[in-house]
């Protein structure tokens, strides 16, 4: 009896410890026709974890539309790929790294960026941009400041070193994320269409080549015990499950892998992410319908006496798995050597369909490869509408006492501009290299980032551009997950449209609590349905994505947070538009209509300390027409600026345009609604644009053909923002409220901070 053999009594106990359920264990026994070995049990426990198998979400995700003429690769690969014209394709995906970041924010966030970037260049694309969607508790405790500061530093520390610009993102601070922060990293890559590569192993007799870092015990069980379970008081003990990143090694990997792909030396390429070698190899084999034979003693190790299972499931970072023909081995290894990277043949492709793992001569695992990747059970979790919904939705914000004098409303506007969820994010993005590669046309701080398409330095340029935005307001999703998910989509679409981008496709990162709780699963199901309906209404497919469950601590789930990463295309990047007011005398026009919708608003939270009511309504047809109108108006050069109305409503949107442009505005409040609603209602389907007075007629005509309400509400000029008789604030007051908030909050307790930094 070797160490590898498990007794029929011990095996089920161990299976449960590794996160499997007993019936899942029975299924493994059925597949193998015997008790699994230690290595096999570990491999199944990882591959059948929620994180790797999507066993609770898989059925619901079928609601997403995934097809389109421009879709080159939909969900199921390392990243989705769309055709953006002129022979160019864009690969993109968003992924969560929530649990590692909650334990060690710097490394958790850094390796989140590293992982998503590997997914991009695995497809044959050069990574050209990344964005991050972040959620923390409010910044009034040292722990939240530590998480926030650490995550931002980690994202910068990794991305800056790689030379991939971090061009955008979003952040919210809410009590609901106190015990479980969210770090969602999105990356985009650019390639010529013909260079699209898939991770499909083929050709029995071909060699399996492991490229990059050595393998250690870091990150063992990261996908199962960390990512697929809730947090409790033992969370700190899981620190060894957090991987440590080496961005320099990853930079070398990017260059080496792109050089290998350019030279057509590889049959397949895949990255080692969650569940390490097990996941990468089994997915590659099952996609190709082949088998693999791997010898763990060949894997370069950074620690002594590693067990085969440890080598197979280690999540050591910065490693890639390639399949090469024997003829191309020498040339492939020469490229790796040039970049100072290890490359080692660790096995061969076979025609048996079996995944065999050896330790020298001894076979330690032997199973049908496809069963790891595809035979995980698929669940139909129970659903139940959460009891809290009836109560929060019944609340009518108009029953509250609202400010109504000009002084009080002006003060409320400044209060909102200084709110951590609205204020300027420059403290964050100034820590990120957002310009490297010279393609960032609209810098962070705008509605969406705009990138020029072209391979800078290699001489291939295009007139086209892409616009990208990541959005989700979890508060809306908490109050109504179906509508909230749609708002995440339409806000991303408006943001992209405001820069001139035509929405083309999305990726998503669906962050929820424990799916085994019927109330949590109901919110998940509703969100997916809402998002799917929005995508269908816009004709915009989902091409990649990620589900992150078990975002709970001490039994308390986060707000449902289905983050949308939307990519749009500009036919002529020269035509792009920005949000700032440009010129004295320009007419300010509101496209869309303000309703009395204060439910779930930032105003309600900041001024009354409440999260209640119904979120704003969404009309998908109107929203689609609005984005089409704005994109057309921008392309034809009618509008000079465009900015989406979101948190904080029309008043905050106007203030942001003033601050960005360094110029004031005089606006007439429309009148029929209470002043507080005119100013701060968060009605969807609204965009503020400016036009030269002589173009006002053309805009009105265009709006009429789209059926979009189009109202001139004011004029750009001066150094104050005056909104009817309701509000009157100076540029300086707005700047002083809007610009320094984050820096002030982060540094509100320097002493504690430096202590924590020393701890780290």
């Amino acid at each position: 009896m070797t160490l590898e053999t498990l007794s029929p009594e011990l095996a089920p106990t161990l299976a449960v410890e590794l996160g499997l359920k007993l019936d899942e264990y029975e299924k493994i026994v059925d597949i193998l026709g015997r008790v699994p070995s230690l290595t096999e049990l570990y491999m199944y426990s990882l591959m059948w974890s929620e994180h790797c198998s999507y066993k609770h979400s898989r059925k619901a995700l079928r609601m997403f539309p995934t097809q389109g003429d421009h879709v080159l690769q939909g969900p199921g690969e390392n990243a989705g790929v769309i055709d953006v014209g002129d022979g160019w394709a864009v690969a993109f995906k968003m992924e969560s790294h929530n649990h590692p970041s909650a334990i060690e924010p710097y490394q958790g966030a850094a390796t989140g960026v590293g992982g998503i970037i590997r997914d991009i260049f695995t497809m044959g694309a050069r990574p050209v941009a990344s964005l991050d969607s972040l959620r923390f508790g409010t910044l009034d405790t040292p722990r939240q400041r530590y998480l926030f500061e650490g995550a931002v530093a980690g994202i910068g520390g990794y991305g800056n070193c790689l030379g991939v610009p971090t061009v955008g993102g979003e952040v919210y601070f809410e009590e609901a994320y106190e015990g479980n922060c969210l770090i969602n990293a999105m990356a985009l890559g650019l390639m010529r269409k013909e260079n699209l590569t898939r991770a499909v192993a083929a050709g029995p007799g071909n060699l399996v080549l492991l490229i990059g870092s050595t393998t250690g015990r870091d990150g063992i069980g990261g996908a199962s015990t960390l990512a697929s379970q809730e947090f409790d008081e033992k969370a700190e003990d899981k620190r060894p499950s957090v991987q440590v990143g080496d961005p320099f090694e990853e930079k070398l990997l990017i260059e080496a892998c792109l050089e290998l792909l350019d030279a057509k030396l590889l049959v397949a390429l895949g990255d080692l992410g969650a569940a390490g070698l097990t996941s990468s190899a089994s997915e590659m084999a099952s996609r190709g319908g082949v088998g693999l034979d791997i010898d763990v003693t060949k894997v370069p190790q950074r620690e002594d006496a590693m067990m085969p299972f440890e080598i197979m499931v280690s999540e050591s970072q910065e490693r890639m798995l390639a399949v090469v023909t024997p003829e191309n081995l020498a040339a492939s290894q020469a490229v790796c050597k040039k970049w100072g990277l290890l490359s080692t043949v660790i096995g061969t492709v076979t025609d048996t369909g079996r995944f065999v793992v050896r330790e020298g001569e001894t076979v330690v695992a032997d199973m049908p490869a496809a069963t790891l990747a595809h035979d995980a059970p698929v669940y139909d979790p129970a659903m139940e509408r959460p009891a809290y919904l009836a109560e929060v939705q019944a609340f009518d914000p108009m029953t509250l006492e609202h400010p109504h004098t000009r002084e009080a409303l002006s003060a409320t506007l400044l209060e909102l501009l200084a709110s951590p969820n609205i204020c300027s994010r420059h403290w964050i993005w100034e820590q990120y290299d957002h310009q490297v590669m010279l393609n960032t046309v609209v810098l962070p701080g705008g509605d969406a980032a705009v990138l020029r398409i072209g391979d800078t330095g290699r001489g291939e340029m295009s007139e086209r551009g892409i616009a990208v935005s990541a959005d989700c307001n979890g508060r809306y999703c908490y109050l109504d997950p179906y509508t909230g998910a749609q708002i995440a989509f339409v806000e991303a679409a408006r943001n992209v449209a405001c820069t001139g981008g035509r929405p083309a496709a999305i990726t998503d990162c669906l962050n929820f609590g424990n799916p085994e709780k019927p109330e949590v699963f109901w919110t998940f199901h509703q969100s997916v349905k809402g998002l799917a309906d929005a995508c269908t209404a816009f004709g915009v497919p989902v091409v990649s994505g990620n589900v992150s469950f078990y975002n709970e601590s001490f039994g308390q789930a986060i707000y449902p947070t289905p983050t949308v990463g939307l990519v749009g295309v500009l036919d002529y990047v020269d035509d792009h538009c920005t949000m700032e007011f440009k010129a004295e005398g320009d007419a300010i026009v509101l496209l869309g209509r303000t309703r009395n919708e204060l439910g779930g608003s930032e105003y309600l939270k900041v001024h009354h300390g409440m999260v209640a009511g119904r979120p704003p309504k969404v009309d998908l047809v109107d929203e689609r027409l609005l984005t089409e109108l704005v994109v057309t108006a921008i392309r034809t050069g009618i509008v000079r600026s465009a900015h989406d109305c979101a948190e904080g409503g029309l008043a905050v949107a106007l203030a942001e345009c003033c601050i960005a442009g360094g110029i004031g505005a005089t606006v007439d409040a429309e009148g029929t609604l209470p002043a507080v609603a005119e100013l701060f209602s968060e009605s969807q389907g609204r965009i503020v644009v400016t036009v030269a007075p002589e173009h006002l007629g053309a805009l009105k005509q265009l709006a009429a053909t789209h059926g979009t309400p189009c109202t001139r509400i004011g004029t750009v000029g001066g150094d104050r923002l005056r909104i009817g008789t309701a509000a009157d604030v100076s540029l300086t007051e707005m700047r002083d409220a809007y610009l320094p908030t984050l820096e002030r909050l982060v540094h509100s307790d320097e002493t504690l901070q430096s202590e924590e930094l020393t701890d780290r």
Partner: protein
Amino acid sequence: MRFGVVTFPGSNCEQDVVHAVNHLGFDAGHIWHGDTDLSGYDAIVLPGGFSYGDYIRCGAVARFSPVMSEIVRYAEAGRPVIGICNGFQILTEAHMLPGALLRNRGLKFICKTVHLRAEESACRWLDVPAGTVLRVPINHNEGNYICDDETLARMRENGQIVLRYCEPDGTLAEGGGAPNGALDDIAGICNERGNVFGLMPHPERATDPMSGGTDGAHFFTAIARRVAEVAS
């Protein structure tokens, strides 16, 4: 006019420099750090990035790359060598320029566009009048320039201080306005001879109105003009 742009493992602005130089109408080629042939290049640029991951100290490993001994010889011949950001750090580590670059005062990476004032200097690769204010992005974690008093005095005397961080109107902020805490607001320096020039800001990021403005063009056009003058 042909610029040679060196790639160290971990460099990440080499493509940007080549692109900027091409955009300005000049030729450029890549030099691998392991190569030692600099023939055919009229100027050498050490680009920004994180050579060798900036492990140990920024530039501390890159200075030992095979290409560096050739670059020392190239500079000794009086030919143009520019180090941008990480390239500047490498030049100080290689003792081709005095002083050192420490971690930014606020302990944060900084990426933003700053104002720079051209000083009266010996540098031959910048041809704007002293006092000219330029807008160029910075992007670094270690740009806090430092040297001893004696070196600073000597640099002032020799006109080795080329660029200083300043206010939009060209004045220097009271008590130091360098975003990274640099001594004397120093953003760029040259050697005594004026042919080796290191600067923290990224001129290649300001050569195109669509992305970053055009003030960075001066740095490349000046070299091209001087090289042409010498040749004729």
